[in-house]
């Protein structure tokens, strides 16, 4: 079968500016990014008000990555995400109400309240978490893909992780295994330049991440992940390759988080100027402008998207507040399966 134009062992540079899709789809992309952004802004308020607790890792600034990649997936595909997983869960189609209830630790949450922000799971969307050990999801993704291959299912497992995971052994072991066995994994490395507070250049001798993947004979493409259309285009090409039996593909999604690593992070390790420079490339305003310029969107449309997101999130918060706290008597459930042995 044919390799992508780039082939294994080589690296494609940032995808050039791709043409806009049709209006409905373009507006859908914008709408998805807006609902994720507003959802997380509400999370900040709720966290400040102590209504939600634990670790909360915000995806603000990175929305185009998850939204773009999810467009290339089908319902039967699988997703493995990290502790920064709100955006992925929402973009995968898990309802805001279900995710918010999870943030509130309620039984109506997508993980029954047992997981919280970092551990969103949903069997009906083949969403396998929510893994809070950096690199820990990569081997599992390889295994999900192995199961698909051994059972003859033409499915893709999309595995999201940050650039910090590239320093972990599990990254290298998993890329090698996936390439060796030609497993249908779409490795999505969200490079936001900081592993918590450690800049990429302070932790990696080779900072070109696609080169690392290419070293394992995995086709590796770098993508401007502040551009949702570029991400979708790259992900669709990658998924097509994978579904056709071409083995794994690695996408380096170049992005930036505008907020601190977590709610506990004082953000001392990067300059305000750097953050401001990246904010200039915020995927939501820039895409909004592009749609306006092309005549696909006007003020009323945008207002409609904002109101729709606000309504969805208001409803999610209200339902989460009224959600059910699991009875303490159930504490020790789900340690072992309850199905008859």
């Amino acid at each position, binding site marked *: 079968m044919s390799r992508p134009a780039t082939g294994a062992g080589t690296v494609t540079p940032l995808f050039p500016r791709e043409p806009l899709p049709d209006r409905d789809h373009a507006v859908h992309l914008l709408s998805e990014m807006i609902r994720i952004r507003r959802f997380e802004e509400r999370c900040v308020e709720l966290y400040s008000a102590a209504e939600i607790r634990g670790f909360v890792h915000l995806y603000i600034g990175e929305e185009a990555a998850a939204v773009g990649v999810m467009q290339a997936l089908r319902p039967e595909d699988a997703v493995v995400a990290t502790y920064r997983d709100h955006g992925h869960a929402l973009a995968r189609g898990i309802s805001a109400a279900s995710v918010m209830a999870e943030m509130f630790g309620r039984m109506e949450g997508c993980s029954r309240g047992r*997981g919280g922000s970092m551990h969103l799971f949903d069997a009906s969307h083949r969403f396998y978490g929510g893994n809070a050990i950096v690199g*820990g999801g990569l*081997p599992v993704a390889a295994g*999900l893909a192995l199961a698909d291959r*051994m059972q003859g299912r033409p499915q893709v497992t999309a595995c999201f992780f940050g650039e910090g995971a590239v320093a972990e052994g*599990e990254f290298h072991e998993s890329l090698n*295994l996936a390439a060796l066995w030609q497993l249908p994994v779409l490795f999505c490395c969200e490079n936001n330049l900081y592993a918590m507070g450690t800049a990429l250049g302070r932790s990696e001798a080779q900072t070109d991440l696609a080169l690392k993947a290419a070293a394992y004979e995995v086709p590796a493409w770098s993508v401007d992940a502040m551009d949702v259309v570029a991400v979708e285009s790259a992900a669709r090409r990658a998924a097509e390759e994978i579904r056709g039996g071409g083995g794994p593909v690695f996408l380096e999604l170049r992005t930036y988080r505008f907020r601190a690593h977590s709610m506990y992070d004082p953000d001392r390790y990067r300059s305000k100027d750097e953050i401001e420079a990246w904010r200039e490339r915020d995927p939501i305003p820039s895409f909004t402008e592009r749609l306006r310029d092309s005549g696909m969107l006007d003020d009323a449309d945008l207002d409609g998207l904002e109101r729709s997101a606000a309504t969805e999130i208001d409803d999610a918060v209200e339902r989460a507040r009224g959600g059910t706290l699991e009875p303490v008597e159930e504490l020790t459930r*789900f340690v072992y399966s309850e199905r008859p042995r």
Partner: protein
Amino acid sequence: MKTTYREAMRAAIRDAMDRDDRVFLMGEDVGAYGGCFAVSLGLLEEFGPERIRDTPLSESAFVGAGIGAALGGMRPIVEIMTVNFSLLALDQLVNNAATLLHMSGGQFNVPIVVRMTTGAGRQLAAQHSHSLEGWYAHIPGLRVVAPATIEDARGMLWTALDDPDPVLVFEHSGLYGIEGELTDDAGAVDIDRAAVRSPGDDLTIITYGGMLPVALSAAASLVDDGVDAEVIDLRTLRPLDADTILASVARTHRAIVVDEGWRSGSLSAEVSARITEHCFYELDAPVARICTEEVPMPYPRHLEQAALPQPEEVVAAAREMLGAA
């Protein structure tokens, strides 16, 4: 028929592969090499490389891949060459296999079986002689079994594969060569209950895995003293079958725990504590423990043997205990 522990384990794998297309074996050198301990010898030729899958030396990746494959509907048997190397896969075993069902609110169970050898006794020094099954028995979400007999080597695997949750199987490397009889219709055995391997009324020796022969040898020696020691094989280290232990101790009033693991913070400590918590007023003597000396395992044979529990130590502890009664 006459067989060995190794052959019984191989028969169990073959049986599982024959009975369920979802079962496959994956690990280092399980295929072309035939298994580091020759357990899977010949299976590659029989089942092919898709189902007898040699892996790179990437414990974390192939254990994690086993977890993912289990989530994806397969029934993987993952072989880690030895417990020593399982430390390279701790993240996957402890942070994923043991937690996914709970973190997902009951949505994702992980029906994986992970086999590994354990134990010392072959002069392999400090990095190849661990007995860390007690560590794994600390973890809620895992089931930990230790087949010590040919029947259990033949029968535990199938039961473990039927379990919807992760099961770790610890095979003491010193047991592979033991010989014995196995009936032609030998098959699945329960993995819920401990077993009385030798009945007795005077004291209870509680052990598992590679220490079962040591305990049985001690019990045989004690017969000469006119002492009937009951030997209990735990079989399953998590969850512990406390009922069997406590019923025996309530009858014998004396207990010795024999464990190849180190004493501090160990499985032997857990067994001892359970007895003390639930049987304190039944005891005629303090619970005794015979464990491996707390040193990294030395290479010379005389030092290794001095570090490992020996039947003579068990006998001496029993005599002291009975003398004190």
